[in-house]
């Protein structure tokens, strides 16, 4: 007996569950770097996040009588939550974040494809505002070989300095607060860039487990673009709009004036790379049209800039992306593709009442 189905009878290689596996694969280098830099404690945090996300997904699946672990989306959510945690975080925090992400943000709205906010980011923001002090105490990576808990990230240290009234470039503001590697110093001597930017690029800074190495995130992101799982539009436009805004206006709060903002350090530090390549490109919560994607990415860049430089928080990526997630349905409603052979409909003439 032959199978009868509607055309097409062949299919492209892309598949939702395989795409999720590829995302995990792309995230792994950065996650492993985090584990190497911050020790086994970081691995425990990652595993706890993933396990609690999977458990939440499984239990809720029992309620709604679906088995959805196979699509790997819960694993991606769990991994992203874990990568957004400081390495020394108390273990109940990633559990709360994962469960909030899966249960409240995703399952309540109908599961995969129906959430209107990136679950992992929503989980992170939820615990960030609930446990702010635990979420903002970081440890230094292994290269510095000092056991210093509650070391600041470059971004938060700069924020603290500026709030205290200091002004200047990152090299002046951060010296003494944040250690630098000799390697970074030698490169910065040669190229004349901030050594902190070099350290942030290679992942020798304090921060969340998965966000420290901009280089490895970049490699993972390029892998995703090459495998056509994401398009270049969102990450490139997001990073570019943020870099341009930082350059133009970023110097103002630091007393440098317009067009003197730093670009490299803000680009490489904090969650920007992780956000631009892995969070802002989430299929479900971003616009579907190419034009919409660009609007979305510019919005992300703008809000990240606004929060980082003029808000009271050192970090803006997660809030910026969540804000644009909320606007996404509106973008999708109004930004349409121009259909092939589009004919503008003539406006109906208003009937004149006698």
């Amino acid at each position: 007996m032959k199978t009868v189905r509607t055309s097409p009878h062949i299919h492209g290689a892309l598949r939702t569950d395989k795409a999720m596996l590829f995302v995990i694969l792309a995230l792994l280098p950065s996650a492993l770097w985090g584990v190497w830099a911050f020790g086994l404690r970081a691995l425990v945090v990652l595993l706890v996040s993933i396990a609690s996300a999977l458990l939440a997904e499984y239990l809720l699946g029992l309620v709604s009588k679906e088995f959805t672990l196979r699509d790997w989306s819960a694993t991606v959510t769990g991994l992203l939550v874990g990568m957004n945690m400081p390495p020394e975080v108390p273990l109940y925090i990633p559990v709360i974040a994962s469960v909030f992400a899966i249960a409240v943000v995703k399952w309540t709205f109908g599961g995969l494809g129906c959430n209107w906010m990136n679950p992992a980011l929503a989980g992170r923001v939820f615990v960030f505002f609930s446990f702010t002090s635990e979420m903002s105490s970081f440890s230094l990576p292994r290269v510095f070989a000092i056991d210093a808990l509650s070391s600041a990230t470059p971004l938060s240290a700069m924020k603290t300095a500026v709030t205290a009234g200091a002004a200047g470039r990152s090299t002046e503001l951060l010296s003494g607060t944040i250690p630098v590697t000799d390697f970074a110093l030698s490169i910065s001597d040669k190229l004349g860039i901030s050594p902190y930017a070099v350290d942030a690029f290679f992942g020798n800074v304090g921060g969340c487990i998965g966000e420290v190495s901009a280089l490895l995130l970049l490699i993972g992101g390029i892998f995703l673009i090459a495998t056509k799982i994401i398009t270049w539009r969102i990450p490139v436009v997001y990073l570019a709009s943020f870099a341009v805004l930082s350059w133009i206006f970023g110097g103002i709060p630091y007393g440098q004036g317009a067009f003197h903002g730093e670009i490299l350090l803000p680009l490489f530090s904090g969650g920007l790379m992780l956000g631009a390549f892995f969070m802002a490109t989430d299929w479900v919560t971003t616009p579907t049209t190419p034009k919409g994607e660009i609007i979305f990415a510019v919005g992300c860049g703008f809000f990240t800039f606004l929060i980082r430089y003029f808000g009271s928080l050192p970090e803006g990526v997660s809030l910026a992306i969540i804000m644009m997630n909320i606007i996404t349905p509106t973008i999708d409603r109004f930004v349409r593709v121009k259909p092939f052979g589009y004919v503008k409909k003539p406006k109906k003439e208003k009937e004149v009442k006698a």
Partner: protein
Amino acid sequence: MKLATFRRGGVHPDDRKELSKDKKIESLPFPEELVVSMSEHLGAPATPTKKKGDAVTRGEVIGTANGYISAPVHSPADGVVTDIRKVRVQSGAVSDAVVIKCNPEQSNPWTEKHDWRKESPEALLSIVKDMGIVGMGGAAFPTSVKLTVPMGKEVDTLIVNGVECEPYLTADYRLMLEKTSEVLEGAMIAAAIVRPKRIVIGIEANKPDAATLMENTIREKNYQVEVVLLKTKYPQGDEKQLIKAVMNAEVPSGKLPLDVGAVVCNLGSCYAIYEAVVYRKPLIERVITVSGESINNPKNILAPIGTKFSSLIDFCGGEKDDAVSTVAGGPMMGFAIYDEDTPMVKGSGGLLVLPKLIDDFSAPCVLCGKCVQHCPMGLQPNKMFRNIKYGNYQAAMDLGLMDCKECGCCAYTCPSHLPLVQGFKLGKKMGRKKK
């Protein structure tokens, strides 16, 4: 050299043409029985003129055209009408069909050549009409209607569609290689009818040998014809995409190619026009590619219209054990058939026996936007599908559902394997019903 193409959307499926591209066209020995459907073409079905028990000769009219958009049907063989019954053709439509028992000896009355250059365009057009020529790319729109240029309209470009962008199919490619000058002469006849300013043959870049052969023959015969190489991208062979690639003009939604001054004629139809005008031979046979991973010997076959698909499969050495589906047409837009005794019609360009190529994966829509990026018509399949799913057919129509041509790019790329094309077919039907 920069290849012409359409700008938006499209997909790049593996073309799998190597299975049958080097197989010469073979003639199928006459099967015992032919089932000739009266609904060979788009438009009104023909009216059968024969009764059970009547003798028919090869090329005799057995169904007369019924209305303007219709075409007559001719007997593909000498034989006796054994039955007139309802039959389901590949598209799923049910129509009357004349069942003919073929005689063991078959005549071939078409040997004398006619000089068409003396004929008027009107006379040529009426020959095309009487010989039952239809578009042989699949939709089977009557060619005479297509070649009728209304008063006051001018044809800028006549495009001969030799693109064959569907994977697996090689029937048009073989015609280009083996019947080069005949195809070109057919195109010149079509040009004599519509009198275009420019004649173009569009060929996809994956058939460079056919393009070279065409160019050489054109030079030899001193025709005013251009060969345009097109980027290998599905659906390059669709009428609207081809016009966009060759003329850089978009056919407005709901309008015909003539509105931008284009007439597109399938390459197989050009060959049929040649035979009809030069030999007065009606359209009673065509070249069909029988291919797929699960057929023993893929072939390009010249078979009479009305041949059952089962006889074609037998001629190709039968199917392998892993055969899962039989598809009439190409893999992107063809119809899966459940009854292998379904007869061939004038639009059947391919018959594929395929193993299991698509897994049973399914997931909800994840709003990835792949369908939007790949839709060659610039539609938003995700939104239309959602509306159709919830029975909101009018909303789907407002989003341009009627511009969808079911090319399958959206469903091909959908990572969640949503049955998008199935949804659009249903939506169109329901939407039309409501109006």
